[in-house]
């Protein structure tokens, strides 16, 4: 199995979720993160002083899938998360050794 992790713009989560459902993904996990990268952060102003905030809000999603599906998933994320502006984020792929569904104890692709 493969684990695909993507860091995306928060506002794109809905779209990505739908795109993934479109390619047959049945489950995923998401959380809010802060990203540092080429997309520079922003300036905030408090009582006349400027504060530089380097981290921008991002959402990270994780989805574990069978090997065959990996490429499609990657592609679906890239397509649905793209705005074309800097900071759109990244998709990373890793090997996943095993998966278990807690409720049933099913293992491997069955568990996904």
């Amino acid at each position, binding site marked *: 199995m493969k684990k695909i992790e993507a860091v995306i713009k928060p506002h794109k989560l*809905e779209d990505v979720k739908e795109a993934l459902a479109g390619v047959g993904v049945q489950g995923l996990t998401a959380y809010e993160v802060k990203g540092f990268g080429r997309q520079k952060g922003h300036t905030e102003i408090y009582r006349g002083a400027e504060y530089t905030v380097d981290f921008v809000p991002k959402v990270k999603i994780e989805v574990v899938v069978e090997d065959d599906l990996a490429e499609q998933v990657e592609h679906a994320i890239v397509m649905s998360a793209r705005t074309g502006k800097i900071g759109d984020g990244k998709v990373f792929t890793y090997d996943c050794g095993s998966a278990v569904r807690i409720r049933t104890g099913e293992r491997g692709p069955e568990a996904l």
Partner: protein
Amino acid sequence: MQINTGDTAWMLVSAALVLFMTPGLAMFYGGMVRSKNVLATIMQSFFAMGLVSVLWALVGYTLAFGPDKAGLIGGLQYLGLNGVLRTTHSLAPTVPQSVFVAYQGMFAVITPALITGAFAERMKFKAWVLLLAGWLLIVYAPLAHWVWGGGWIGKMGALDFAGGTVVHISSAAAALACVLVIGRRRDHGTHELQPHNLTLTLLGTGILWFGWFGFNAGSAYAANGLAGSAFLATNLSAAAGMLSWTLFESWHRGKATTLGAASGAVAGLVGITPAAGYVTPLAAIAIGLIVGAACYGGILLKGRFGYDDALDVVGVHGVGGTTGAILTGVFAWKAVNAAGNNGVLHGNPALLVPQVVGVVATIAFSFGVTFVLLKVIDAVVGLRVDDEAETLGLDLSEHAETGYILGRAS
């Protein structure tokens, strides 16, 4: 007449209470938007406390409450509050005019602030500042004059105890114009735009309810039985509004929500505003029940039209204010307030005429002028932030601030 210390004490307090409603409204609205817009939403109300207070002193007050000119506008006698410190105003003959000025000024602050719920999450701050100033002087001050300051609506015999037309209907009509001109939020229809912090909204509701006693019972301009009856009516209508809304909601959706309870209470408060000093406690309960139901229906309609009145200014203040104004014509009773009139239920269906005329005139006037104002402002500075700013959130894009930083990495 001589200054009465008890009346003055009550009016000082009432003015303070009405001022407090604006931060309350800011919290009420602020909790309902997404977290990235919370500060901008609060700011829209807060800024009214700043800008309107000053404009009111300079010119607004005299336009509204200066000596009547042809039933249309007040004269300039009180320009810059000239001469208010050692006099009284005929509407509140037992309190110093300074207190009357302050009290009325608080109404002028909160009324435009009510509009902001309609265009939440997308309007430029600069555009709002311009609209605020223009609306205060061109819409609010004349309307206040027409209804209370000796103008034609009051003279016609329309009853509006504490601002059903002047405050609620006028702001709702303006809200409708905003919704039409500014358009929907980018994410309207595509994202679930849930309230981000209902504890803030509920706190705001508590503050509004508390402050509304100053709003309505203060409109007696004295600490007397009339104030007492308006106080009681206010509380009962708020309560009945809450019951009514949550009941309908339970039927319709199977749950009574906290936002429903809050919304119903506010609806009840809006509905009783024109009637507070003219009706019995039981009538106040009836008004609350009817208005709660009407407003619940009103917000459902919004979905039908596809409008994005983000925080339901039309559904609550428009529907509630209008229903309340009509019901005032139904339930008003001279036995409660001899200075009022009898309504339909007390044998005088004719009262409905000025009530309806007042409502229609207010809607037409406020909607029309607001529409023009918006078009002008749009041409000059633009009404809406751009898409990127809207996605980023107005807190950062318009004010360079962040609402909450709850993590520990600092």
